[in-house]
């Protein structure tokens, strides 16, 4: 595209680029000032403020340390000292941490002053610590010295006290004597006084010396120590003087004590020197503490400087930020003003003058063109888009002039075409204007009424009058016709038909048009008129035909009903009315097919019960709606059989026909009836026959019925109600139910037993059987059957039932009796068996052998009796159904091993060996463990009893048969075997192969029977194979219902909880 600097686009682009440029400059200035402010804030928040905070924390820390130092100095023992020292250590560590942090955040020349001061502080603390340690040691020494001093002083007291007492006693004695005016030797008195005085003074002086020492030990001022030492030395001199006055023995005793005391005054280990050393140390400590205080002050100063430096920084940063902000604001304001100015200039100087004004001019030109003024002048001298638009508009204006001219041409052409069209139509056409004057007519119209163009402008009335004279044919009065035609012309309600004198029929269609007048079209309908007349003639003929058709219909004996396509009644014939018993009036009133049904209700087709009436009607209507159907039989309630057919006629109407074939049916039914009767008679030799037919209220019964029922001999039938009256009230319900079941098709026949009133007016048991005959749709239309006396059979049944009940009761009593007997027998048996066993033990221990044998027999007999009782009891319980099983999850191997252990004694008695084989997969069974064990034990016992020096195998495995899994337990022996003859009797109670066997082999003979019954109770079976002399195998098969080990554990844990 050619870039033209003068084009509007480029100029606007330049202007807006300029304004945008200003905006970008403003944005950059703002961004710069925000950035600067941000940096300053960053500096303040990340460096200056934390630095200032750390510095003041540091100052506080130092103050705390300095405040704590005197406590260290005053520590009176090691524990206190170390606790204060620990506290100081913590503070010092904190101090060092702060120093480090400060070093990282502040780089100030003041910082250099801080580090050495902190180091000195720490050193001072260490010094103080050392001094305090030393002081404490000295104090301890001093305490020791004071204790020794006390002891030494006590020693001194001891050495002097007796002498002093003696001397004082002597003196007292002499003074008392003197007081009593006795003669006292003065020398003696003086001597005594001299002896006592120095001692007393010595004691005083020594005591003063000691007090002086004690004062020294607590003197707080080192300078005063010398002053205190001086009286001590004087005391010691006086003591030594006093000592000289004492007798030798006293001197000998006391002077070592004095010497000991003197040591506390002078020398390296004297109290004085110790105290002076201690005080010196305290002084030094105080110096350090003072130095610390000074240091602290220095540190605080440094910190203050640091903090104020940081605050200054913050202030300067803030002011810097403010300056940047202010500068930024100014720059932005300037740029925005400049941009605004530029925009105003652009809009005013350029947009308004160079664009808007010209566009407005162009717009005015366009409106003029649109308003139809195509001759205005359009010109624009410039060289841009608006100028192009102006030239385009000029082109458009010229084109519009051309278009207007061509439109006028086209309108003329269209008018011509309209004339031609009107001329070419086959109908007469004319147009009357608003004043009802003819303005347009075509040739056809002119021909119809003999008009030409000279008639244009004539009024309709004039034209009508002219036409009536020469053209119009009417049998009306001319005035009346004129009025009627004029009225029609003005209102134009619809077509107007008119005949001309030449026989032409015209249909005049007139239309009033708004502001245009009236248009009239004259169509030639002569031909249509002729057709109408022909049709009228044909209709007359048709009516005649229909009349004769109805006569024919009435003559035939088919009932016929015509329905139109909406299934409304058109007509019916006489036979139809006759069949349905309807009068002509009723048919007249019946509008629809449905109405016919309603008229027929109660006397119609019997295919439905009352409740199903509506459904029945709907079904019939639907059937007819569907179309034709073939003839089929229907039966009415009054017993007529009709052949019914529907014919669908092409126009949608229906013809329904009904043909009464009742007489034909009667013959047919009679034949079938006799066949059925014959069949029923065959089935019920000695029984009364009955039958019932649809439509009959009575049930027909045969002669035999009178012999079993209370029915008068002359009656051949009876109603349903009469029959029900014969039945025992308690039995009535069941026959109704059975009948309904059968009629509804749920039972093929019905067969009930009930008590019926006989000729002797007593109820006898009868059996009532019957079946219905059904039509194809399942509807029962006839029923027949038999009634027979079953009194004898019923009696027999009662007897049998009673006998069975009695037998069952007896069995019940029997097992109860046995159970009770068992209790009564067991109690003495308890003693018999127990006592004989006891006696046998006695005899075996210390009695003669002779008793052993008979007692063994008594004991054995007792046990046998007990076994017998147990077995009989088990058996009787099984027989009475009283034995309950308590199944649980049983571990098979454990149970079998346990059974073998129990039978072990018996097995070994006959020198047999037992072998147990359990398949790997055999683990658990869900069964009653007690009874399961009983069966196994019984088989093992049998095998051991009938085998000598042989082998007994017990095998447990799973096997499949009849689609189920079984646990198979086989006990095989190599014993005497069983004869085939006895194999069948094996499981019959008390049937050992040979009655002597009971005696020979022991046992009750009930074991196998019980085992077999138990097996079948458990859903299993027991079988036997045997060969005489070879051995016997008993196999027990039980349903394999294995339980899991987990189940077993749960069961057993439950059991143990219980």
């Amino acid at each position, binding site marked *: 595209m050619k870039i033209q600097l003068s084009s509007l686009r480029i100029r606007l682009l330049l202007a807006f680029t300029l304004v945008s440029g200003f905006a970008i400059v403003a944005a950059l200035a703002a961004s710069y000032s925000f950035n600067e402010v941000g940096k300053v804030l960053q500096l303040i928040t990340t460096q200056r403020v934390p630095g200032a905070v750390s510095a003041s924390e540091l100052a506080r820390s130092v103050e705390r340390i300095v405040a704590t130092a005197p406590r260290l100095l005053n520590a009176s023992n090691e524990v206190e000292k170390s606790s204060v020292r620990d506290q100081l250590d913590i503070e010092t560590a904190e101090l060092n941490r702060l120093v480090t942090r400060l070093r990282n955040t502040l780089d100030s020349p003041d910082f250099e002053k801080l580090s050495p001061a902190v180091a000195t502080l720490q050193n001072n603390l260490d010094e103080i610590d050392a001094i305090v340690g030393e002081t404490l040691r000295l104090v301890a020494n001093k305490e020791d010295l004071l204790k020794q001093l006390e002891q030494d002083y006590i020693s001194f007291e001891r050495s002097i006290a007796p002498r002093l007492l003696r001397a004082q006693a002597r003196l007292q004695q002499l003074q008392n004597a003197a007081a009593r005016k006795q003669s006292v030797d003065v020398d003696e008195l003086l001597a005594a006084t001299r002896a006592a005085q120095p001692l007393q003074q010595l004691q005083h002086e020594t005591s003063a010396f000691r007090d002086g020492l004690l004062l020294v030990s607590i003197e707080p001022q080192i300078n005063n120590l010398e002053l205190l030492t001086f009286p001590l030395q004087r005391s010691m001199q006086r003591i030594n003087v006093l000592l000289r006055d004492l007798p030798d023995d006293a001197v000998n005793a006391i002077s070592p004590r004095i010497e000991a005391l003197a040591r506390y005054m002078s020398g390296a280990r004297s109290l004085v020197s110790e105290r002076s050393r201690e005080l010196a140390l305290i002084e030094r400590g105080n110096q350090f503490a003072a130095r610390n205080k000074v240091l602290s002050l220095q540190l605080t100063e440094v910190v203050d400087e640091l903090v104020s430096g940081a605050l200054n920084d913050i202030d300067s940063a803030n002011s810097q930020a403010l300056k940047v902000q202010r500068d930024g604001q100014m720059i932005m304001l300037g740029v925005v003003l400049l941009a605004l100015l530029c925009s105003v200039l652009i809009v005013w100087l350029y947009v308004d003058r160079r664009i808007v004004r010209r566009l407005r001019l162009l717009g005015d030109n366009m409106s003029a063109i649109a308003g139809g003024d195509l001759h205005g002048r359009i010109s624009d001298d410039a060289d841009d888009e608006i100028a192009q638009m102006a030239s385009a508009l000029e082109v458009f204006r010229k084109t519009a002039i051309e278009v207007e001219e061509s439109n006028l041409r086209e309108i003329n052409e269209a008018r011509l075409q309209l004339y031609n069209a009107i001329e070419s139509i086959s109908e007469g056409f004319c147009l009357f204007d608003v004043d009802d004057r003819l303005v347009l007519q075509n040739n056809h119209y002119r021909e119809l009424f003999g008009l030409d163009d000279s008639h244009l402008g004539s009024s309709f009335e004039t034209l009508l009058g002219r036409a009536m004279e020469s053209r119009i044919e009417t049998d009306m009065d001319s005035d009346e016709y004129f009025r009627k035609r004029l009225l029609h012309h003005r209102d134009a309600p619809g077509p107007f038909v008119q005949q001309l004198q030449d026989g032409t029929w015209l249909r005049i269609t007139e239309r009033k048009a708004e502001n245009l007048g009236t248009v009239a079209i004259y169509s030639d309908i002569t031909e249509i008129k002729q057709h109408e007349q022909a049709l009228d003639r044909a209709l007359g003929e048709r009516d005649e035909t229909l009349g004769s058709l109805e006569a024919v219909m009435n003559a035939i004996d088919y009932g016929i009903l015509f329905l139109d396509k909406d299934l409304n009644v058109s007509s019916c014939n006489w036979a139809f009315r006759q069949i349905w018993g309807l009068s002509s009036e009723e048919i007249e009133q019946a509008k629809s097919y449905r109405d016919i049904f309603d008229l027929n209700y109660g006397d119609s087709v019997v295919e439905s019960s009352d409740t199903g009436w509506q459904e029945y009607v709907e079904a019939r209507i639907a059937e007819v709606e569907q179309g034709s159907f073939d003839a089929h039989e229907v039966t009415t309630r009054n017993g007529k059989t009709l052949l019914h057919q529907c014919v669908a006629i092409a126009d949608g109407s229906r013809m329904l026909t009904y043909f009464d074939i009742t007489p034909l049916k009667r013959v047919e039914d009679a034949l079938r009836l006799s066949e059925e009767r014959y069949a029923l008679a065959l089935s019920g030799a000695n029984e009364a026959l009955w039958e019932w037919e649809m439509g009959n209220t009575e049930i027909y019964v045969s002669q035999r019925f009178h012999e079993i029922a209370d029915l008068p001999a002359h009656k051949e039938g009876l109603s349903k109600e009469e029959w029900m009256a014969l039945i025992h009230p308690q039995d009535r319900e069941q026959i109704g139910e059975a009948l309904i079941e059968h009629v509804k098709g749920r039972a093929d026949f019905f067969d009930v037993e009930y008590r019926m009133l006989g000729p002797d007016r007593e109820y006898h048991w009868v059996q009532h059987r019957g079946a219905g005959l059904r039509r194809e749709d399942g509807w029962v239309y006839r029923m027949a059957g038999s009634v027979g006396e079953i009194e004898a059979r019923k009696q027999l049944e009662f007897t049998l039932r009673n006998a069975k009940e009695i037998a069952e009761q007896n069995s019940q009593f029997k097992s109860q009796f046995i*159970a009770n007997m*068992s*209790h*009564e*027998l*067991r*109690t*003495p*048996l*308890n*003693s*018999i*068996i*127990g*006592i004989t*066993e*006891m006696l046998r*033990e006695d005899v075996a221990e210390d009695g003669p052998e002779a008793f052993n044998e008979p007692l063994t027999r008594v004991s054995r007999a*007792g*046990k046998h009796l*007990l076994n017998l009782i*147990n077995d009989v*009891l088990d058996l009787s319980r099984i027989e009475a159904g009283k034995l*309950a099983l308590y199944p649980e999850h049983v571990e098979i191997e454990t149970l079998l091993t346990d059974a073998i252990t129990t039978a072990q004694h018996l097995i070994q008695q006959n020198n047999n060996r037992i072998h147990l084989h359990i398949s790997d997969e055999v683990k658990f069974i869900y069964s009653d463990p007690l009874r399961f064990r009983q069966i196994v034990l019984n088989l093992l016992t049998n095998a051991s009893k009938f085998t000598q020096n042989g082998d007994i195998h017990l095998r447990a495995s799973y096997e499949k048969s009849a689609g189920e899994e079984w646990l198979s337990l086989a006990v095989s022996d190599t014993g005497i075997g069983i004869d085939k003859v006895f194999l069948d009797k094996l499981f019959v109670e008390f049937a050992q192969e040979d009655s002597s066997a009971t005696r020979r082999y022991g046992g009750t003979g009930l074991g196998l029977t019980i085992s077999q019954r138990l097996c079948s109770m458990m859903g299993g079976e027991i079988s036997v194979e045997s060969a005489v002399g070879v051995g016997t195998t008993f196999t027990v098969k039980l349903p394999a219902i294995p339980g899991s080990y987990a189940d077993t554990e749960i069961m057993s844990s439950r059991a143990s909880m*219980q």
Partner: protein
Amino acid sequence: MTTLLYVEDDEDSIYMLSNRLQREGFEVLVARNGREGLDLAHDQRPDLIILDLVLPEMDGFETARRLRASQATAGIPIVALSASVLPEHRHRAIDAGCDDFEIKPVEFSRLLEKIGGLLSDAGRE
């Protein structure tokens, strides 16, 4: 010495069983009805009770229930002893609080086993 209380109304059974138990080294106390059994159990605190179920005055079931209900005797093991073979008697005896059930005529060795087992169980607890 281990003391057993035998509650029984049949004299022959008392004679037989107490004799045999004594020979096994037990001291045997005898009560002839339930009430007496209860009193003896309270006063003497036997190590184990052998309880007949059919008793005059108070039957064995009731006696067992009362023994269990009283704190003093609740811990003493009880072996029910009866000539009744009806399973419901066995169940009722266990429900009443008996630890085991033995049928008459007594199979002495089995009874001894049961006594031994119960005594050692009680000893463990």
